[in-house]
């Protein structure tokens, strides 16, 4: 280890570390300990919110691997989650499959669907791909709606799922779910971080930046694009499957296009092409409706008109997407990076050159 400047890296292993700075390791350890301790003093409401956030983190990391790293826009993520949820519902209800079998099976089926949805990506880029995944979304949801109407307990009630059991431990209630989801969330984040710095992640970034150049340096574009879709869909199906267990009921109405857009909003707000960004975005977008709700509670009663609060929660997603794309396109993580850079360089000032100055 070279002494002297903390920015001096003398090996690739050092630059590739997940947390290169010592303070980052301290902060992350402290955060993990704090997260483990939350159930001992947090209220049930807080635990519920955090559980929702962990579910969102799993889905957002998956989408960011596909859209942020590999550059393939997907509007079909809600349908992947629906696939995960429905496979879980079918397996538990029809075959009485245990938790440890139903969840991986949902991931595998989700991955298979992701493979099929990813096939058009071999032909299209950008907006055409987005339109294709949009059509795929409607097709999958249409099939599931038909299934639900035929085999569900009733056309609207959806399919209920019993609480999962591992060994003799029944996962029920906010606290036990908290640990299951925290574990899965942390595992997903670690998986994403490791994948993104491996040759797979580097191949994805190369394809995102210029697929022709990537192909010419020997990256198998077909394989890696499909791999991105498969990985991403598997993670989305994981989130869908766990979410189905968590809520105890599966209805196709929960998996709208708005949900897919919400996940896109998460990675835009958090930061495209950054795992930490997906976590930040997932936290932000999950808590946003609750903040608006609280803000509304503070208003005088006669201002709270009927469904205005609900409408504003919806509108907030759109407003946040637009504001971030216009003013902070690299997301919340870029704000963090700027602040971190300021303190790292302190007392020296460092300013990024504008494109005009860089020329």
């Amino acid at each position, binding site marked *: 280890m070279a002494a002297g400047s903390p920015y001096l890296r003398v090996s690739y292993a050092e630059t590739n570390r997940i947390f290169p700075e010592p303070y980052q390791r301290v902060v992350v350890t402290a955060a993990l300990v704090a997260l483990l301790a939350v159930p001992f003093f947090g209220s049930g409401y807080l635990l519920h919110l955090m559980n929702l956030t962990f579910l969102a983190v799993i889905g957002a990391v998956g989408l960011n691997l596909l859209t942020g790293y590999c550059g393939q826009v997907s509007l079909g993520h809600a349908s992947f989650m629906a696939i995960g949820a429905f496979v879980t519902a079918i397996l538990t209800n029809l075959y009485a499959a245990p938790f440890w079998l139903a969840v991986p099976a949902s991931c595998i089926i989700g991955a298979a669907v992701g493979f099929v949805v990813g096939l058009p990506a071999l032909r299209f880029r950008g907006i055409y791909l987005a339109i*294709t995944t949009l059509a795929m979304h409607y*097709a999958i949801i249409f099939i599931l709606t038909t299934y639900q109407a035929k085999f569900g307990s009733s056309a609207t009630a959806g399919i209920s799922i019993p609480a999962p059991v591992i060994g003799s431990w029944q996962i029920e209630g906010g606290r036990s779910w908290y640990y299951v989801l925290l574990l899965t969330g942390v595992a997903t984040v670690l998986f994403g971080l490791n994948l993104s710095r491996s040759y797979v992640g580097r191949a994805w970034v190369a394809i995102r930046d210029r697929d022709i150049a990537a192909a010419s340096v020997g990256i198998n574009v077909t394989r890696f694009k499909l791999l991105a879709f498969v990985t991403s869909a598997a993670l989305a199906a994981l989130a869908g499957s766990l979410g189905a267990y968590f809520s105890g009921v599966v209805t196709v109405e929960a998996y709208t296009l708005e949900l897919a857009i919400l996940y896109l909003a998460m990675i835009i707000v958090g930061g495209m092409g950054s795992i930490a960004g997906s976590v930040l975005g997932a936290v932000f977008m999950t808590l946003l409706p609750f903040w608006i709700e609280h803000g509304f509670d503070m208003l005088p009663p006669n201002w709270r008109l009927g469904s205005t609060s609900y409408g*504003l929660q919806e509108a907030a997603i*759109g*407003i946040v997407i637009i504001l971030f794309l216009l003013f902070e396109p690299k997301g919340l993580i870029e704000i963090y990076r700027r602040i971190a850079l300021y303190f790292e360089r302190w007392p020296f000032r460092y300013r990024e050159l504008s494109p005009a100055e860089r020329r």
Partner: protein
Amino acid sequence: MELLVSIIVLGTTYALLAAGIVIVYKASRVVNFAHGELAIVGAYVFYSVAIMMPGHSLPLTIAVTAIVSVIFGVIVYFALMRSLLGQPTFVAAMVTIGVAIIFKAAIVVVWQSKSVGVNLGRQILYTYPGGGRLTAVDLITVIAGVLFFAAMFGFFGYTRLGRQFRGAAENPLLASQRQVNVNLILALAWGTAVFAASLAGVLFGSRSMLSPQSTIIGLSGLTAALVGGLDSLRGAIIGGMLVATATFITARLIDPALSEAVPFAILLVVMCWRPWGLFGTPEELNRV
């Protein structure tokens, strides 16, 4: 005969929707995912204006709605799209999705998701032997569609501004060096597109009730635009008619429930077979 009229009426509505998407795409290479929302908000504006106008005067309502929708379009361009020029198409498309969400929420906030209908005239002009009816709305729809497309073809083909528009669509940089006001052209494109959307929305709302869920017609419009080719106004008409035909034939001959699936089924087929559409330019794919 009755089926044919229904197809033409629905097809005109889809073609108008597709025309708005095509005009914006042609001018700025932005696929507008907010089109269905803009259409339904336009219809809701029409409904509100009709209530406010003295004596519910129809011409006045139409004029006010048209002006409001053109202003909407121009605002969307200057407030959002202008600063996104030259950015990746994905960013612009995401912004239109954001616009879509805001407009859909506006229906909830402003109109409280009320289910309303627009009255353009429900007089029965003719009753078919089978019992079906030809109403005034059907006639108005077709006339409005023909007028709009005639105006568009005339504008693009024979006016100075229309020729400048096509020039700016082909190469904005060269056009601006030849004294073409590209900003004006793009604002005009958005204004026209939102006007077409509102027109389609009002015509749609005069035959079925409006609700936030009606915004799904944007998908039919997008399908129609893609079938015809995203950069072809001619294609919008053909695409609209084809989508309407497929929807009606599925509903009549196979299963009404399946007809909901028709737009995205066509979308998938077109994307696999001819992604640039019937009349579009194949090179388009390399630019996106």
